[in-house]
């Protein structure tokens, strides 16, 4: 695929990694905010290519992981109601609520449907006037424009049977919460490239100033990640702290103005609870007054939810970068992708799932030497 495959060139990646080795003189801890970046780093083995001194800390940029358990329980309650078509991105389907997940609700007769786009949910509402169509609007700023447009269109078309269960969170407050946390060890951030394609990066200079840390807007493909890491290391080695854009082909300083325009109309800032972290002030979006009629929480008034987090689950510590997944006592034992205790194990981009699925329970040595058998394989 054009503008994708070229940024996965293994040979260039090896050279870039070598360059990072050459310029790194001290240990550094860099956090990649976005779960998609975590997934790409672990899946492609980028962390294996870096010098031992560079520690990639995995941030809370996994919207599935940070959606509060109480909201998931509400989603389950709504999806179980007769007359409801509950639409969701695939990511949410296996996230465990207190006692079950959306897949199980589907199995018990709930009408739960996976959609690719929130527009599909709007179409479903238009085609099924006798049903209530609810869309699980989870995401960071990247997904918000899509969700905003779907609500805006529903309003324009006068659809009375469409609503959104909103769980939108914002990146800059998360970065600040991490920096303000007493046990913080992060020294630089790779900002989420696609979030910035929407929001631009004008929100970051005040963060670099306040906390004196470098922030590099970074993409998702291996070469983009290596470039982001490289630039962060250069700043760290030089003692600099400013914002850089390492994803220039997609991201501009101002961001996408038409999108920001509609976002400001459909959403307003609100405090949000982040699962595993707690409430971060002004860290999320909720529907603004003109659009409040489309809020599923208001429309369905679910009560009597008794939320119970697993006492063993350390998702929060993982999300803040305080521990690595393999350092959680339950990792691989009580908590596996088959029996996840928390969202970081069940979400495809959750750090725990990434570690488990890509084998980070093998020792680093074992994994590095695993490819030895392949030298004999060549096709005619």
């Amino acid at each position: 695929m054009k503008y994708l495959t070229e940024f996965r060139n293994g040979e260039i990646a090896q050279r870039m990694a070598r360059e990072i080795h050459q310029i790194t003189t001290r240990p550094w801890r860099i956090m990649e905010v976005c779960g998609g970046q975590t997934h790409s780093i672990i899946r492609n083995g980028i962390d294996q290519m870096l010098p031992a001194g560079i520690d990639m800390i995995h941030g809370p940029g996994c919207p599935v992981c940070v959606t509060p358990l109480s909201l998931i329980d509400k989603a389950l309650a709504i999806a179980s109601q007769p007359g409801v078509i509950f639409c969701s991105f695939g990511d949410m389907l296996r996230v465990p609520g207190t006692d079950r997940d959306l897949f199980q609700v589907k199995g018990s007769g709930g009408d739960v449907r996976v959609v690719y786009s929130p527009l599909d949910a709007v179409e479903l509402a238009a085609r099924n006037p006798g049903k209530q169509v609810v869309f699980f609007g989870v995401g960071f700023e990247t997904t918000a424009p899509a969700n905003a447009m779907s609500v805006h269109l529903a309003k324009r078309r006068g659809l009375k049977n469409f609503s959104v269960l909103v769980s939108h969170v914002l990146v800059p407050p998360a970065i600040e919460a991490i920096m303000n946390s007493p046990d913080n060890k992060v020294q630089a951030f790779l900002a989420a490239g696609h979030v910035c394609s929407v929001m631009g990066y004008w929100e970051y200079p005040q963060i670099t100033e306040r906390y004196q840390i470098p922030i590099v807007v970074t993409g998702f493909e291996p070469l983009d990640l290596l470039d982001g890491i490289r630039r962060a290391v250069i700043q760290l080695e030089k003692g600099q702290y400013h914002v850089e854009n390492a994803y220039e082909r997609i991201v501009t300083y101002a961001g996408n103005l038409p999108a920001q325009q509609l976002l400001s109309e459909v959403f307003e800032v609100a405090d949000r609870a982040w699962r595993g972290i707690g409430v971060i002030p002004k860290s999320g979006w909720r529907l603004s007054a003109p659009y409040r009629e489309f809020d599923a929480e208001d429309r369905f008034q679910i009560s009597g939810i008794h939320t119970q987090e697993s006492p063993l689950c350390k998702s929060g510590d993982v999300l803040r970068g305080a521990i690595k997944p393999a350092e959680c006592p339950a990792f691989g034992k009580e908590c596996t992708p088959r029996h996840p205790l928390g969202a970081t194990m069940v979400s495809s981009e959750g750090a725990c799932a990434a570690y488990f699925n890509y084998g980070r329970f093998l020792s680093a040595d074992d994994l590095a030497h695993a490819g030895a058998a392949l030298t004999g394989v060549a096709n005619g």
Partner: protein
Amino acid sequence: MCLAIPGKVEQITEGDVRMGRVNFGGVVKNVCLDYVPEVCVGDYTIVHVGFALSKIDEKTALETLELFEKMGALEEELATEDEVFARAANLPQSPCPDGSCDLIGQSLSAEDTARIGGKK
């Protein structure tokens, strides 16, 4: 957050919503182009959950790739640490390299900016 992939716009339909047929390496989907009014047929754009979020600046993409190609390729054994460092550190330092920060304030009122979380 953020599985967005590049695709080429093949056809645009103006209407209630601006939609386009976008080709992702042989796979075609209908995508909402309302957020990228500057995108035309033949342009590449990055798409997330059925919405185009940004035009791909092809010139920049190619320049970036060229830059990556050059990394570590030339005289890497001969270069001193300083030379490697200097070459690696050759980056624009201005806060707004593409001049787009001039647009802020024109399209968004201070109120709107504050409302969506900006602290400007």
